[in-house]
Structures are given as C-alpha cells and as structure tokens.
C-alpha cells in the first residue's frame, strides 16, 4: 500500500479546505479511513520494524485529527500555516476589559470552595466561560477570513485564557467530587 504524503498540511491530509469552519462529519470520516489503513493493529502480525513505522504514521494522523477537531488548536494551526510563530501570537495585545473580566471569573472560581452549594455556581460559571469561548471563535473566523491576522491572533489569545480557566474549573470540580 502507499502511505499518504505526510508533507501535506493537516487540512490537505484529510482533503478539507484550509479554513476555520470544518465539516466535522467529513473530518471524522476521512480520519477513520486513514486509520483503517495505517493503524498498528493492521500490522500486528508484521515484522517489528513495520509495526514501528505504523505507530509513527498512525500517531501523526491522530495528531492531525486532534488539531483540526478542536477549535482552538485548529485556529492556532491556521495562524502557524499563515506564518505566525507561537511567540508572535502570544505577543498580541488583549484589551483591558477582557483582562478584568478574566480576573473576576477567576475570583469566582477561587471562592467556590467556601460556598454551600458550589456545584450550581460552578455549572453556571462553566456555561458562561463556554459561551465566551464560542464568541471568540466567531471573532477569529471573521478576522481570519478577512485576512486580519493580528485580530485573529488576539482572538486566539483570549480563547487560550478562557480554555485555561475552563481547565481550572474542571480541576476544582474533581476536587469537589473527591471531597464528597
């Protein structure tokens, strides 16, 4: 069999247009097709060296799929393809209002432990953060399509902040779970 060309970018690998909006059904379809061919299970009885090669290719396809499947990772990847480095993206300024909002959300998260019914408040916070993330995804899509990479990068930075907050919320939730 012939392996696909791994010099292609992730979008090309899955035969998808290079853009933020992704047809996730199609992405999943092509992902599964590739894994059907490449997965190490298909080489379980093959010599060890072929198995190792299969592991590498299969891992690459997994990486590509994980990147395109998650909006933030996909957005960062698009910027990378457009020639922006990690450092350039991180250096993108974020407006003060957003930062103040972040601090407020964080304070709410940190005071959860003292509440009588933290679960309800936590659920509410998670919903709020998730809605914010979606708003910035839309912001990214518009800026990227218009070729405004700086604004797109700025939206990415905001998503990064919020995703980190979401992760902390999950951490707190598992701590609350363990406490019961």
């Amino acid at each position, binding site marked *: 069999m012939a392996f696909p060309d791994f010099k292609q970018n992730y979008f090309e690998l899955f035969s998808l247009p290079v853009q933020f909006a992704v047809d996730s059904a199609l992405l999943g379809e092509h992902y*599964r097709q590739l*894994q059907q061919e490449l997965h190490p299970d298909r080489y*379980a009885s093959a010599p060890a060296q*072929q198995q190792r090669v299969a592991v590498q290719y*299969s*891992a690459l396809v997994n990486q590509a799929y994980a990147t395109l499947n998650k909006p933030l990772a996909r957005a960062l990847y698009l910027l990378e393809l457009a020639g922006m480095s990690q450092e350039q993206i991180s250096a993108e300024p974020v407006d003060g209002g957003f930062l103040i909002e972040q601090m407020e959300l964080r304070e709410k998260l940190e005071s959860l432990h003292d509440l009588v019914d933290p679960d309800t408040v936590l659920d509410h916070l998670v919903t709020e953060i998730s809605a914010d993330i979606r708003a910035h995804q839309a912001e990214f899509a518009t800026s990227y399509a218009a070729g405004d990479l700086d604004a797109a990068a700025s939206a990415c930075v905001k998503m990064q902040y919020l995703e980190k907050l979401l992760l902390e919320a999950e951490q707190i939730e598992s701590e609350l779970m363990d406490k019961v």
Partner: protein
Amino acid sequence: MALLQIAEPGQSPVPHQVKLAVGIDLGTTNSLVASVRGGRATVLPDEQGSAMLPSVVNYSQAEASRVGRAAQALAAEHPADTLVSVKRFMGRGRDDAAGDAARAYYHLADDDTGMVRFITSVGEISPVEASAEILKVLHRRAVDTLGNELDGAVITVPAYFDEAQRQATKDAATLAGLKVLRLLNEPTAAAVAYGLDSAEQGVIAVYDLGGGTFDISILRLHRGVFEVLATGGDTALGGDDFDAAIADWVLQQLAAPELAPGNYRQLQTRARSAKEQLSTNDSTSISLQGLLPEGGAIDLTRAEFESLIQPLVKQTLRACRRCLRDAELADTVDNVVMVGGSTRVPMVREAVGEFFQREPLLDIDPDQVVAVGAAIQADILVGNRPEGDLLLLDVIPLSLGLETMGGLVEKIIPRNTTIPVTRAQEFTTFKDGQTALAVHIVQGERELVSDSRSLARFELRGIPPMVAGAARILVTFQVDADGLLNVAAREETTGVESSVTVKPSFGLSDGEISGMLQASFSHAEEDKQARQRAEHRLEAQQLLEGLEAALAADGDELLSPDECAELHGLMQQLRLAMEGQDVSTLKAGTEQLGKASEDFAARRMDKSIRQALAGVSLDALDDEVSE
C-alpha cells in the same frame, strides 16, 4: 521521504491458513480464556467444564505452585502463602500497596524501591510472577483445547491501568510464554463483544465493575471503527470492597475481637456468598460457625447491604459523570453495557440505568464478555479476517507529564488522547558545560509531582558541553497501541543522539524479566533446592521472631540467667546458619532451637492458664487504667 514497502494489511504470509489466537481476561478474582472457532467467539472451559479460573495462586506446597480452585482450597490454612487479588498489586510500589497487603495478611519484602514482593514459603514472589502462573494455566488450557501452540494472545487490562500496571501485565504474559499481540482495555473489549452482534452506529457506555477494579468508558461505534471518546475509573474499587464492607459490618455487629488471618479470609468468602444470595433474595444468613467459639449466624437484609455499598456505588457514578463530560458528547448515550460480576448486584444495575437513562444491556454473561471481545480482537490482529472489518482507537487514561522546577508537573500528553501518540518536548541545559540532564516522568491529573504517580526517571547523557541554554534537547514521548511509553532523545544543534535509560519506578527491568525467564527454564532440581532453602529459612525466621518476642515479654520472669544465655546462644547459631547456603545446617539449627525452647514455651503456657484461671487481678486492672 523514502517509504517502506509494507504487506497488504490483514494478509497473512500463507493464505487461508487459520492462526490460533486467544483473548485472555486476567481478572482480579477470576480469569478466562476465549477463542474464535468456526466464526464464533467462545470461552474455553477446563476439563471439569468450568470456564472461570479463580485468580488465586498458592505457594505453600514446596513441589509446585497451585492455581485456581486447588489454591483456593488452601487459602484458609495458608493465608500468607495464598495470593488472591494480586492484580491489585501489579505495578505498585511498597508504600502504595502496604495498606492493601495488611488487609489481605500478606507479608511484603522490605525494599524501598521497585514493585512489591510477597514473602512466601518458597521465597519472594512478585505480583508479575503470580500473574504469570495464572496465565500459564490458561495458556496450557488453550493449547490443549485448540490442539496447537498459539500464534498470539490479546490480554485485557482495566482501561484505567497506568503505564506501570500495563507493563507489569505484559511482563507476566511474556513470563507465561505468550506472544502478546496487544494489551486491550477491558471496556473496549466488552464493547467489541456487543458491537459485532449489533453492528450498529452510536455511542456506547461501558460500565465495568469487576472484583477489584472499576472502569467506565464512552465509545463511539461508526462503521466498524470503535473510537474511545473518554475513559475513567478507579483501579482499587470493586466487588472485593463489597465483600469487605459486609465482613466489617459483621465484625462491628458482633463487637468481635480481631479474627485470625485465616478466619478473616473465611469471613470474606462467606460475605461474598451472602452478597451473591442477595442478588436474588431479600435477606440471607451468614454463618459464624468456626469463626467464633460460640458459632451461630447473623442475618443480613438486602436493604442493609445496599446501605453498606451505597458510598461505593456513588463513587463509581462520580467517575461516570466526569467521563461523560470528558467525552464531550453532543447527544446522549445510546447503549449501556454492563461488565464484571459485580454488576449482578441489582442496586448497581438500577443506579447505572438511572444515571444514563438507559436500560443496561445484559445479553452476554458479564463475566465472559471481556474475554469474548478480546478473542475477537485477537482473531483480527492475527490476520484471520481478510477484511479486517473492525478497528479500535483507544486512548490513554491518565495524563503523562514531566517534573519541572519546584516539583510541578508539566503535562505532555493529556488524558483521553487517542493512541498511538507522539509528542516532542524541547529541553535545554541550565549550567555551562552541562553534559547530562535528569528527566522524571509522572502520570496523573494532579499539579504536584508529590501527588502524582512516578513512572520513570532517566538521565540524558553525552550532551556536548555548551554554554547554559544553548543545547536544544528534543525528547520524544511515544505511547504505542498497547498504551506503553517509549522515550527517545536527541540534541538538536549537534545531532548527538543521547542515550536514554528508562528505569521503571515500579516495574521490572528487562534484565529482571530475562533473568526470571531463564530461571524458569533452568533445571527443576535447582528450583526445588532453592525452594527448600527458602522454606527452611522462613521457618527459622518465624521461630526466631516468635522467640524474641516471648523472651522480651517473659524471659526474665520465667527463665534463669543460664537458661536465657543458652537460648540466646542457639539463636545466634541459627542466625548464622540462615546466612549460609547449607540446608541441612539450617534445618538442624531450627530443630535444636525448637527443642531447647519447648520448656520455655510450656512455662509461658502455664503462666497464661494461671492468669486466666485467676481472672483479672486488681493489679492488671490498674495497669489497664494507667495505660
């Protein structure tokens, strides 16, 4: 890039030749082997017609270890020599496992590093070796039934097993002479067993509550591809805990004194059958015959039992909730599959059905479903299915990370990442001329290294001396389809490949494995002698320990200075004999000391009888109050 020529997938070198492959469920309480024969996956029974092999290994008999029911029969008599639920100890360190070991009355070898080892009459036994004994029996059963040596086996592990536990399982299979095609997560195996029958699309939740482990996995089945979306669980929670809850309740009800190890084991066995009774009856009776001098029985209602296990069931549902969230499902779960004997408990079924809002599937025997699924996967991996109609995409259950400055964890591969996966991380030196770098790999979700599971430490050596921060060392972490980690490192600026020696924190090194393999091939006579030596040494040690305690308690009171000196002299001789290799000297020394201390033992017995007859004296009461 040069591409390697690879044979067509699923094509075996000799067409139409069916290969022999099995699936093995190496369980905490029971183990099974299954195989696909004539297109159907079935479990392989033993000569007595029973498919389940109790995961029990007994080492009290010098000539050979016993496995299964034969070992179970010796459990009450030889609690420390009869290893049950060894799966709980796989890949765990001594500190980590000490609590479980005390509860099971095992003696652990004193050792600060490495995996736990049990002290038995035949010497120190690691959980890997004990598991290998179980696998050997199943291996033999499969060869006898299928008529030829196997081409490969799929061994199942709890999805939530960490790297060390997986490696330990693979090592055990290697020791048992099995060619491991793949380690397969138990819930995934169960989903395969169900999925092939229904061959539909949709989201499946697998709730797997076994004897000692709990797993929850959410999978999506899509035209022959099983994609594990998320997995979670607890490697130390299972039906054993239900039994222990009942046993502890009984002791509490009776306000009974501590039971002897063998008796506690027996109580647990009775607790287990009480639990099984309560799956169909509203109440049952637990006999205390032989456990308490006065005998009798105690009644347990289903309601009381349910209140005892309520916290444990709740704990499993919490893990379900987290797993559901990790799966990021857009819609609800279509099917719930129940796996493991503990899902026979009606309350568990009800709680799970209520949680997922779905009637759980029970068509396949929950004790056999994992082995059946593993057999199907083995059949595919070995190349018996020309179409290769099924593919499993599994995930890692726990995040992999690295220790960074200040004892913090930096996550490299987050949990629920699909495997195989490769991630690279760049390091640099922090001192001028630095030529080595220490890397500590941990597993778990916590932020502090001290709260995480230590997997491995290794050093990168041979870094060319450069100014601080100039070296660029790329460390690549690769988790293969078995969920096992491989590490490689390279200095980027010079292209120097650094040598990496991964020393598993709680596993066995390759050297230890090959040593054990060699030992098992070596002459039986040598084995026998070594076992005898170990047996006599243990006997001597037990005598010495008992005598030391007795002397400390009553020596001054019951013995003259001369008698005391004589005993101490003989004890010293025996200690020397223990260090030597001569079995006969050791045996003679033990006998001599045993004889010499007989008189002392008799006097102690007299004393305790006198005390018992005199009742509790005022002095003793005073002592108790002041204590």
